[in-house]
């Protein structure tokens, strides 16, 4: 029985040839390259996500007076998509590492911990060398930051950013920056207005509240924050361009 099987195998092998070694070397190289590429992407995404959490999330003291529920803000501004991408990248690295000779012998938890430590170390290295700062100035990355500021996107959220044109007893007229549309902002004693700031004509404010036709019943009014990234990228009237305070250059 065994001899018969051996003969069958040997007969089949007669027409076969071993694949050349370079094919496997290329495959190994691609695997290693893939791991490095995924690591770099993970470090980048980690940097952006961390920036957004620290600079946009109310958990770290941003937008305290915006009028929204604190927990709603935390979850609304949290960069879920980026965290999702980061998790996928880490799983991808894990999968590829498991394919590298002998590394599968390590515990899965240990591999994940190593990946997290390397990603975090990579982030801090990029921070120290100024690489993060350079990357943050990139147009694509800036757009990601802007998209992530969900609560502060005028076209989607109940938020309008505009210049004060007129102040009356219980209402303000503002001109929205990116559309030039005029809004009447109605406020009362319940409206949370950022402390230590006075409403003055010409100031840029962010209003959060309920929209109805050309009126907004304000829940919160906040003056334009120096930390509001990408603000200068909104298209705005020529007449306002020189009056606008310059937002600081992005940094991580």
């Amino acid at each position, binding site marked *: 029985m065994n001899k018969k099987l051996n003969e069958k*195998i040997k007969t089949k092998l007669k027409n076969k040839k*071993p*694949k050349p070694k370079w094919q496997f070397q290329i495959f190994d190289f691609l695997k290693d390259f893939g791991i490095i590429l995924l690591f770099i992407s993970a470090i980048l995404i980690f940097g952006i996500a961390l920036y957004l959490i620290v600079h946009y999330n109310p958990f770290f003291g941003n937008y305290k007076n915006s009028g929204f529920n604190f927990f709603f803000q935390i979850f609304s501004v949290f960069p879920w998509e980026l965290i999702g991408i980061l998790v996928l990248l880490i799983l991808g690295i894990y999968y590829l590492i498991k394919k590298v000779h002998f590394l599968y012998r390590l515990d899965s938890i240990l591999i994940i911990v190593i990946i997290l430590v390397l990603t975090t170390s990579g982030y801090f290295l990029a921070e120290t060398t100024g690489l993060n700062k350079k990357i943050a100035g990139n147009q694509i990355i800036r757009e990601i930051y802007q998209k992530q500021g969900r609560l502060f996107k005028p076209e989607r959220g109940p938020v309008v950013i505009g210049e004060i044109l007129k102040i009356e007893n219980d209402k303000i007229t503002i001109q929205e920056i990116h559309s030039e549309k005029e809004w009447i902002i109605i406020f009362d004693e319940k409206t949370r207005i950022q402390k230590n700031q006075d409403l003055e004509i010409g100031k840029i404010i962010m209003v959060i509240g309920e929209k109805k036709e050309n009126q907004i019943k304000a829940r919160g009014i906040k003056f334009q924050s120096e930390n509001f990234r990408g603000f200068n990228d909104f298209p705005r009237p020529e007449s306002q361009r020189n009056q606008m305070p310059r937002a600081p250059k992005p940094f991580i």
Partner: protein
Amino acid sequence: MSLKTDEQLALETSKNKEAFGELVERYSEKIHYYIARLIGSFQEAEDTTQDVFIKAYENIASFNSKLKFSSWLYRIAHNEAVNFIKKNYRYKKVEYNEDIENHQIESEDLILKIIKNENAKEVHNALLKLKTSEKEVLQLYYFEDKKYVEISDILQISINSVGPKIKRAKDKLKKIIENEQKT
């Protein structure tokens, strides 16, 4: 048969086809029985065994000499057996085949120790009721007499997880046999 190690023969294969022929003689039977136990069919295991050796021969350049050749070959056998099971979707519920059980490598058969009063046929039937992963880990450890590190290389799992997997599979096997005794 030469006195060369498996690894030496594997490295020679690209220049000398005969070297691989010797590896076929050394391992064809073991691989055949290994696959037969996994897929539950002695006849169909023969075809899969042939595929294993053809694949091993074609991919011999990818063999890393730091690894044991047997582990590398069993890895291919594992993949082929798993593919076969996936394709056929179910286990072939084969009749008890004495040949399969007679092929136990002469190591201490701990499974039989655990279930002292059972005969090989009942163990064989109970093994068929385990999942592939459970069956495989028991088979490699008890029937093929592989060490933890070799099992880790064959199944590509961490060394630390091998022990608990064996224990879990053993407990499950014991339960199956106990349940069958009751009924």
